[in-house]
C-alpha cells in the first residue's frame, strides 16, 4: 500500500474521530446542563 493510500485512510479515520468527539461532547453538554442556561445568551449583553 502506497503512502498516499495510507493518507487517504488516515484522513477518513481522523475525520470520523473528530466528528464523533464533537458529537459526543455536544450530547454530554446537552445532558449535563439546563437548556435554559445553554440558551441564555442575549444579544448586546456584555459579561
Amino acid at each position, binding site marked *: 500500500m502506497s503512502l498516499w493510500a495510507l493518507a487517504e485512510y488516515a484522513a477518513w479515520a481522523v475525520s470520523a474521530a473528530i466528528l464523533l468527539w*464533537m458529537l459526543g461532547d455536544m450530547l454530554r453538554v446537552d445532558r449535563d446542563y439546563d437548556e435554559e442556561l445553554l440558551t441564555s445568551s442575549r444579544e448586546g449583553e456584555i459579561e
Partner: protein
Amino acid sequence: MSASMPETTADTRKISLLRVLGPGHIWALGVGIVLVGEFMGWNFAVGKGGAVGALIACWVIGILYTCVAMIDSEVTSTVAAAGGQYAQAKHIIGPLMAFNVGLYLVMAYTMLEAGDALVVGDLLASVAAQTGHVLQREPFVLLTVAVLAWLNYRGVFMTLTVNFVITAVAFLSILVFFFASAPWAGGGMLQHKALLTDLPYGWLGVLAAMHFGIWFYLGIEGTCQAAEEVRSPARSLPYGTMSGMITLLIAATLTWYVCTGLLPWEYLGRAITPLYDAAMVTGNAWLEVMLFVGTLFAAVASANGCINDASRAWFSMGRDRYLPSWFGAVHPRYRTPYRSILFLVPIAVAFAYVVPLDQVVTFSILSGLLGYTFMPVNMILFRKKWPLGSITRGYIHPFHPLPALLLLALCAMTYVAIFLGYGTQLAAMLVFYIVASAWFAFHRYRFVRRGDQFTMPWPRPKGY
C-alpha cells in the same frame, strides 16, 4: 437541574460568547476569508475580459468593496452583535430583511467553505498526481472541514490566532513573489510588453469580468460577525476591516501584476491555481513551494473564517427564534455556538461533494451580492432614522450618501455581469430566497419574541 450549576444561581447565571479578540484577529478573519481569492478564482475575470479588463474589474469592484467596508464599519461600530449585517438589518430595516440577510450570510460562507475545502483536496490530488498516484480528494475535503470545525468548536481565540498566522504567511508569499520577480529590472522575468493585449472582447468583456472581480474581495464584510467577541468593537472593527481592505487592494494588484507578466491571458483565464502556476513558470523551486504553501494556507484560512462566520449568523438567528432556539446555545466551557458549528458541517460537506466548484463559487458570490445590495438601503435608513449626534458611533464614514449610492450602482452593474454568464443560477437563487421569505413570514415569525429582538440602547428613531 444542571449537574455542575448551583441551584440558587441557575436562574441568574448566563452563558455568553467571550470577548477576547483584538484588531489583529479581525484582520485575520476578514483577510483570511478573502485571500484565497488571489490564489484562485479571480483569474476567470481574465478569461472574460482579458488581462486589462481584469485589472479594470479588480479596481472597480475594489471601489464596491471599499464602500462596503466603510458602510459596515460605521454601522457595526454601533450594532456590536454577533450576526453582523443580520443584526444591523434587524434593528434598522425589519425582521423579514434580517432573516434574508442572515440566510445570505450563511449560504455565502457555507458555500465558500465548501469551495475552499475542494481546493485543498484538489491541491493534494495534484501533488499526488506528480508522483503518479490518483488521489481521492473526498477524505481530505472532509478532513479539512472536520479539523476546522473542531478548532472553531474549541474556542474563538485559538481559531482566529491560527488564522492570523496562516493568513500572514499566505500574504507574505504574494509579497515575496512580487519582489522575487524584480519588477524594477527591465527585461527580467516579467513580460508585460509581450503579454498584455487590448480588450479581447471589448467593453462587454470588461462588464462580464466584474462577476469574477468580486472574487478578489468576497467576504471582507465577514469581520462584522465577530462583533460580540471583540474586546473593543467600536475601535477594533473599523480598524480591522479597513486595514483588511487595504491589504486586499495591495494583494489583488500585486497578484494581477505578477500573473499577467508571466502567463498569457488565454492560459491565465482558465487556470485553477494561477499564482502557483505563475511560480512554476519562473523555474524557481523555492517560489514554487512557497506559492503552493500560500495557496494551501489561504484555502484553509478561508474555510476557517467561513465556519466562524456562518455559525455566528446561524446562532444569532436561533437566539432570536428566527430559527429554532436550539441553535442559540453557547458551549458552557468553550463559549462558542457549538450546535450551530456542528449543524453546518454536513451541509458544507454535502455542497463540496455534490456541487461542482464553479457552481459553489457562483452561488456564494450571488448570496454575497444580495447582501451588498441591502447595505446601501441599510445605510441610508440608518442615517435617516438616527442622524449623526443622536447615537454614539465608533466610526463615521465620509461623503454620505455617495458611497451608498455608488455601492447600489455597482451592485446593479454586477447583477448584469452575472446574468450574462449565470442567469439560471441567479434566477434559482432568487426563487430560493422568495420561498424562504414566505416560510418565515407566514410560519416562523409567530415564534419570534418581538420585543426581545431589539437590543440596542438607542433612542426612538427620528420620525417615529
